[in-house]
C-alpha cells in the first residue's frame, strides 16, 4: 500500500462530507462551454414547456393551397408540405423529443448503472447470470417486441403511447450501458485504492457509492450523452411501427426523417429540425463533459 493511496482515501473522505457538491458546482460554473450548453438546453426546455403559448400558429392547421414555402417573415422556419408552420411544429416536436430523450435515457442510465455495477462488483455467478440476461435481451427481435407491446396496449391515447415508448426504449438502451459500467467496475475494483477501502473496513455500499461509481462516472456520462440522440432517433423508428405519438403531433426524429425525403426540394424541412437537434446534442455534450470534470474526485488536485 503506497503512501499516496492511503493519503488519497483520507483526503477523499474528508472532502466528501464538506464540500463535494459545492466544489463540483463551483467547478462547473467556471466551465464556459458547459454553462453555454446548460443555457441552451434550459432555453429549449422552457420553449418546449411553453410551446402552446409561444407558438405563432396551431401545429395542426393546414393550408393545402399554400403548401411548402421557404422561411419568411411570417413563417420563420417555412411551412411543410401540408402548409403547416414549421417553427410551431419544431417547438411542439421539442416537447416529445426532449421528454423522450431525457426520460428514456434516465431510465436506461439508472437500470444500466445499477445492473452493471452490481454484476461487476459482486462478480462470480451473479455476474454470469446478469450478463447472460443482457445477452438474451440483445438477441430477441426488437421489432416483434414492439409490435406486441403496441397490440397488447392498443391505444390511441398519447400518454399511454408515450409510456410504452419509454418502456420499449428503456428495454434496449440500458444493455450497452450495463456492459460498459460492468467493464469499468471490474477494472477499477482491482485497483489499489479499492483494495485499500476493504482493508479499512468500509461497507460494500459505501465502496460502491463513494468510490466505485464516482470513479466510473466519466464513461457513464459520456455514454449517457450518446444515448440521448440515439433514443430520440429510435423514437422516430418506433412511431413507424405505430408506437409513439400519432400525427398531427410530431417529434424532431419524425420531422428529420420526413426532411430527409425532401432534402433537395424543400431543404428547410430538414435544416431546422436538424439544427435544433444538433444544438441540443452539442449542448448536452458540453454539459456532460463539464459535469464529468466537475465531479471527478481527482480533479481538485490537478
Amino acid at each position, binding site marked *: 500500500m503506497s503512501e499516496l493511496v492511503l493519503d488519497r482515501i483520507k483526503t477523499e473522505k474528508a472532502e466528501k462530507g464538506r464540500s463535494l457538491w459545492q466544489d463540483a458546482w463551483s467547478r462547473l460554473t467556471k466551465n464556459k462551454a458547459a454553462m453555454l450548453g446548460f443555457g441552451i438546453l434550459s432555453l429549449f426546455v422552457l420553449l418546449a414547456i411553453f410551446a402552446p403559448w409561444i407558438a405563432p400558429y396551431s401545429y395542426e392547421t393546414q393550408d393545402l393551397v399554400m403548401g411548402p414555402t421557404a422561411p419568411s417573415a411570417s413563417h420563420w422556419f417555412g411551412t411543410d408540405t401540408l402548409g403547416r408552420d414549421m417553427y410551431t411544429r419544431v417547438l411542439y416536436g421539442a416537447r416529445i423529443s426532449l421528454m423522450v430523450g431525457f426520460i428514456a435515457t434516465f431510465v436506461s442510465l439508472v437500470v444500466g448503472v445499477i445492473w452493471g455495477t452490481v454484476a461487476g462488483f459482486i*462478480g462470480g455467478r*451473479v455476474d*454470469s447470470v446478469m450478463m447472460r440476461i443482457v445477452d438474451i435481451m*440483445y438477441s430477441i*427481435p426488437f421489432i416483434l417486441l414492439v409490435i406486441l407491446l403496441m397490440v397488447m396496449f392498443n391505444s390511441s391515447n398519447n400518454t399511454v403511447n408515450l409510456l410504452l415508448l419509454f418502456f420499449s426504449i428503456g428495454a434496449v438502451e440500458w444493455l450497452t450501458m450495463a456492459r460498459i459500467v460492468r467493464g469499468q467496475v*471490474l477494472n477499477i475494483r482491482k485497483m489499489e*485504492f479499492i483494495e485499500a477501502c476493504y482493508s479499512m473496513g468500509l461497507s460494500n455500499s459505501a465502496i460502491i457509492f463513494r468510490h466505485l461509481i464516482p470513479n466510473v462516472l466519466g464513461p457513464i456520462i459520456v455514454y449517457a450523452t450518446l444515448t440521448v*440522440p440515439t433514443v430520440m432517433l429510435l423514437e422516430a423508428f418506433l412511431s413507424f411501427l405505430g408506437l409513439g405519438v400519432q400525427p398531427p403531433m410530431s417529434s424532431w426524429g419524425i420531422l428529420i426523417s420526413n426532411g430527409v425525403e425532401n432534402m*433537395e426540394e424543400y431543404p428547410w424541412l430538414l435544416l431546422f429540425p436538424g439544427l435544433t437537434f444538433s444544438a441540443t446534442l452539442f449542448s448536452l455534450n458540453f454539459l456532460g463533459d463539464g459535469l464529468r470534470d466537475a465531479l471527478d474526485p481527482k480533479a481538485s488536485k490537478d
Partner: protein
Amino acid sequence: MLKYTIKRFLEAIPVMLIVITLTFVMMKTAPGGPFSKEKKVPDAVLEALNQRYRLDQPLYIQYFDTLKNTVKGDFGPSFRYAGRTVNEMILEGLPETAELGLYALLFALVLGISSGIIAALKKNTWLDYIPMTISMAGICVPSFLLGPTLVLFFSIYLGWFPVTGWDTPMQKILPSITLGAAYAAFIARLARGGMLEILAQDFIRTARAKGVSETKVLLKHALKGGMFPVVSFLGPAVAGLLAGGFVVESIFQIPGLGRYYIQAAFNRDYTMIMGTTVFLASLIVFFNFVSDVLLIWMNPKLNFGKAK
C-alpha cells in the same frame, strides 16, 4: 482460459434456449401471419398452406420442431420466398454483410480510437475540440440521413461514386463510411473518456512522476486501461454491425443479412425470424465473450471466475 471458454460455452446453451423460446412466443402472438395479405387468402387455400408448413400442428409440436431444427442447424424453407431455405439465404447474405461490417468497423476503429486518444492527450485544446465536434456530428447525423446526403453530393452532383451496388471497390466506400460513422463517433467519445479516466489514475501519475517518457506511459500503461469502455462497447457493436446494417443495406442496395433480419419480422416469415435471430444471438454471445476475454487480457488481475 480453457476453463473459462468452456464455462461460457455451457452458459450459452440456456441463453439460446431462452432466446428461442421468447422469440417463438413473440412471433406466434404477434398479429398477422406469413400468409395474411391485403386480398384475403381464401380459407381453403389457407388451410392447405398451414398444412404444408405444419402451422396446423399444436403449438407445442411447432415449438419442438423449432428446437429440433435449431439443434440440427436447419431452419427449413422460408415462408415468404418460395423455393429457398433459410440456411441458403443466410449463407448468401452473410459475406456481403460481413464485408460491409468489417470495413465499417475498421473505419470506425481507426478514426474513433486515434481521434479519441489525441483528444484525451490534448484535452481542452483545438486537437480535442475539433475531433470531438466532428464525432458529435457523426452521432447527430443518423445513417438514414448521412447515406442519402453522401449519395446526393458524391454520386449525383459530383458523379464520383455509383449510387448503389456492392461489386466494385468504388461501390463499397460510401456504404462503409455511412455505417461506420456513428460507430466511429461512439468509439471516439468512449476512447476519450476512458483515456481521461486512466490518465488521472495514480499509477499513471506515479509513472509520470518517476520520469517515464510520455510515449511509454501512453503505450505501456494508459492504452490498455483506457480502452476498457471501447472494448465493452465493441462486443455488442460488432454483432450490431453484422445484423444492424439494415438501413445502409437498403439505401445502397446491398444484398445482405441485415435486410433479411428486419424483413423477416415484417413478413412474419417464421422460419426466417428464427433463423436470423438464432444466428444473431450466436454472434452476440460470441462477440461478448471475445470482448470479455479482451478485458481479461487487458487487465490480468481480473478473474471473472471467482467472487472477491
